[in-house]
């Protein structure tokens, strides 16, 4: 059973503008499309740097990982970056086992994450 995915967005207008996506629920084969669509919309509207807050994500399957990779490729091509914030324990475990932790910037706090852009 998959929980719905909920996504909230906020814009940080610091030295480098960053769009924060707060994701909660399960990121699996049923819900990854929502994440991709929302990210595409934001990128089409001009977002270049996105921070994904993963603290409230209970489950991350391969579909979610693929969606994240696809987002980071799109942003890189546009000269920006995708970074990750404070993943929940199950998500942190998956990121480590599959080796994502070496290729994605993962920060524990919002401030540290925003400063790193």
């Amino acid at each position, binding site marked *: 059973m998959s929980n719905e995915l909920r996504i909230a967005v906020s814009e940080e207008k610091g030295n480098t503008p960053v769009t924060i996506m707060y994701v909660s629920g399960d990121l699996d084969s049923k819900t990854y499309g929502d994440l991709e669509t929302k990210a595409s919309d934001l990128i089409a509207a001009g977002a270049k740097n996105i921070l994904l807050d993963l603290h409230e994500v209970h489950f991350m399957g*391969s579909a979610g990982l693929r969606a994240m*990779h696809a987002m980071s490729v799109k942003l890189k091509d546009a000269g920006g970056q995708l970074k990750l914030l404070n993943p929940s324990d199950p998500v942190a475990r998956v990121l480590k086992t*599959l*080796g994502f932790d070496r*290729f994605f910037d993962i920060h524990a706090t919002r401030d540290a994450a925003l400063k790193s852009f």
Partner: protein
Amino acid sequence: MLSLDDAGQLLRRSAFFRSTSASAIRALSDHSQLVRLSAGELLFKKGDPGSAMYFIVDGCVQVHHAEMVVILLERGEVFGEVAALSSETRTASVSARTDTVLMKLERDAIYATLASHPDAVRSMIEALCHRESEVIGEKLGRMIQARVLEHELEIGQKIQRNFLPATIPAMPGWQLDGMLQPARKVAGDFYDFFMVPELQCMGIVIGDVCDKGVGAALFMTLFRSLIRSGALFGGRTERSAGDDELECTLLHALRSTNRYIASTHRGSSMFASVFFGLIVPPTGLVRYINAGHEAPWIGQGSGVRTQLSTTGPVVGLFEEAEYEVGSAEVRPGEWLFAYTDGATDAQNEAGEAFSEDLLRCTVVRGAAKDAPVLETVRQTLAGFIGKADQFDDITMISARRDLH
């Protein structure tokens, strides 16, 4: 404002009322009401009870189920007859696509008119039968299409078998075994056994392409082929003497596969977890790379002695990925067992997962018997899953070293 005469004329043009007499048409329009909808407005939902049939005077409506649009209907067409003429509920939802004007005919009025105008009955039955034959025709078309697709998938399944070892190679002093149970017709998991003659060692591979179904199956063939090709051909001539040949072969195979897929297929974000080992049969030495895959076990009668943890990230996403080569030994009498998460994630009818612990016990117990381990595990899994759907591809390999 539409006059009754105009309304009658319009009704007459529709298939439902074409052969209806003028007096029947007049009776119907007398009892009709005009309904106006603005673009996007929902008229009724699938499953709602209903008692009215509608005739489109002007505009366009869409017949749909949630986001799926079945058909668009325009001026002169009729809909809603099923719920109006029977006790069935609305067969689909209807919303206005543009601003629309409808003529609404209520059930009581329709039946009263039909009772006094038998010609109208005939016309209506004709129209209903025509609709039914159209629906049956469409259903047959769909069944034929489904059968064609099923046939294509079966062909795909046969071809995919060519990408798995047709027979497990013989290795003196060892028993090798592998099995793959796809969740769908085609699988995203793979395993491989192949001799590397120049190194006098046996390559063993197990992999799991993300997701499942046709997409994963297509990439499965690519991963499997690139790894095998990378291990058998290439890399060795560029090295200087003294380099560890097993290590170089493993690194070349996995690095080249990873770089190829991460760059060439960057846009698809497909990846696979892979365990690739090279076994030296006389000594039991295993050099391996574990790219994000479930750690294989080496064990004997009393349990698992060691596990071969990851030495690098999954394959196909990160071009710059670095891999390390691990080292292990399968001693005489011991076995190496590897699996994909389809085995540990397998669910029974109660929704419980088989789990790593249970798999470990099953393997240890099975290895202690004389029968092939994989068959024991397969049977235990089948018993556990019962009538539940198999959710993911289940793949296992084992390499068992003789005691003497």
